[in-house]
């Protein structure tokens, strides 16, 4: 495992009006690392993810990707975003485009790859997420699990430096959760740098290098998955784990 810092957050603060959603967040994600973010609803996990590709701005502190501060706007920001993949809870596939077009759009329009090359790469990725045979379908014709795997392929197509997953399995029927987690586990094994907001402990134990526990906009605890799940140090983490374990 290399330990080059890839994503660095330093003293990051963010408010929504009076609500202090991110409080002095310090977090480093090294290249090739898989970090699972866990915590109660409303603790700021989504906001944390969204600040990393600047879908949300921050009030103070600094976020760096590959030693570069995030650009504020314009082309530079678009380029940054193409380096940071994002997979959403609600898939967010482009409804008027086929599966293949969903995956080739970014490479063709942002990276300016020729169509042939983009399509060949897209087909490889769709095979990798085991959905190559659905390339000509529209999103509405696929199950949730299939749509989420397409969304992962769409993110991968940009060859991002890091991929952010915001509760990628929370909107899925239970029987489809595993197929998505399997794809994510494969990615982790292949050395993709990943920040994953999830409550799937099986995945965290299998694939994560580190678990970050958030509550009320703060990082309360950071540990290896095994340590965190068997021996949570903070009271809030103990409390939270006891709640999700009894579910």
């Amino acid at each position, binding site marked *: 495992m290399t330990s080059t810092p890839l994503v660095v957050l330093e003293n990051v603060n963010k408010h929504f009006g009076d609500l202090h959603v991110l409080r002095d967040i310090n977090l480093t994600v090294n290249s090739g690392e898989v970090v699972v973010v866990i915590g109660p609803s409303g603790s700021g996990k989504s906001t944390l993810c969204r600040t990393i*590709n600047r879908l949300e701005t921050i009030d103070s502190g600094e976020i760096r990707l590959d030693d570069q501060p995030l650009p504020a706007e314009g*082309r530079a920001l*678009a380029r940054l975003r*193409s380096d940071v993949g994002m997979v959403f809870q609600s898939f*967010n*596939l482009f409804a008027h485009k086929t599966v293949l077009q969903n995956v080739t759009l*970014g490479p063709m329009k*942002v990276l300016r790859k020729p169509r042939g090359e983009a399509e060949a790469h897209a087909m490889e990725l769709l095979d990798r997420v085991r959905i190559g045979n659905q390339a000509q379908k529209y999103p509405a014709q696929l199950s949730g699990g299939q749509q989420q795997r397409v969304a992962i392929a769409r993110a991968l197509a940009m060859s991002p430096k890091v991929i952010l997953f915001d509760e990628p399995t929370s909107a899925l029927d239970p029987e489809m959760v595993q197929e998505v987690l399997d794809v994510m586990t494969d990615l982790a094994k292949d050395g993709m740098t990943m920040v994953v907001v999830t409550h799937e402990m099986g995945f965290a134990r299998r694939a994560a290098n580190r678990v970050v526990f958030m509550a009320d906009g703060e990082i309360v605890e950071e540990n290896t998955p095994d340590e965190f799940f068997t021996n949570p140090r903070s009271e809030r983490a103990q409390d939270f784990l006891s709640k999700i374990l009894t579910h």
Partner: protein
Amino acid sequence: MEAFLSNIDRVVDGFSWTVRLTLLSALFSFILGILLTAMRVSPVPLLRGLSTAYVEGIRNTPLTLVLLFCGLGLNSALGLSFADTVATDVFWWAVIGLSAYTSCFVSESLRSGINTIPLGQVEAARSLGLTFTQNLRMIVIPQALRTVVGPLGSVLIALTKNTTVASVAGLGVQEASRQMKLMFDQGIAPVLPTFVGFAIGFLILTLPMGYFFGWLSKRVAVVR
């Protein structure tokens, strides 16, 4: 009826101008409508403000006033003109007035279509690195258009009928309603059959539009 039919070439000529006014105004108001919508949703406050002011201003002005302003104000009083012949000149001023007016309704329709697009898709496009204009062009507008094909059809039908206001407002384009009025004035056509004939003429133009747009909106609907 015979008297009406014996003047049929004038009727056809009138409607040919109606069609020309409609098609050109439709084209320009579509382009201008998209532009106004893009400005309306842009991150630049000045552009948003301009678009809002324009749409609210023109949309709430009677079409007659808009066309009078083009004809009396810009063309006659300020002497702005497109061509040496009056006929061509008034035609283009009518197209401009109709486009300026209709584009507001195109824009309002489109905007309601944009509001139906899940924000998540826009964020997904943004997170791929698409710029604001790429996002509009490739994700937002294509889907918004599909959801408002029906309403846009109604706008086109209204535009077709609105072409008759041009001559009332002093822009003497020889479109159907003006031809009709001229035929009355010259006493060469009996009133009732002529009225009915021209009304049917408009029906022949607009009824298929309604059906076509209804069919098209089903055809291009995006399943979510």
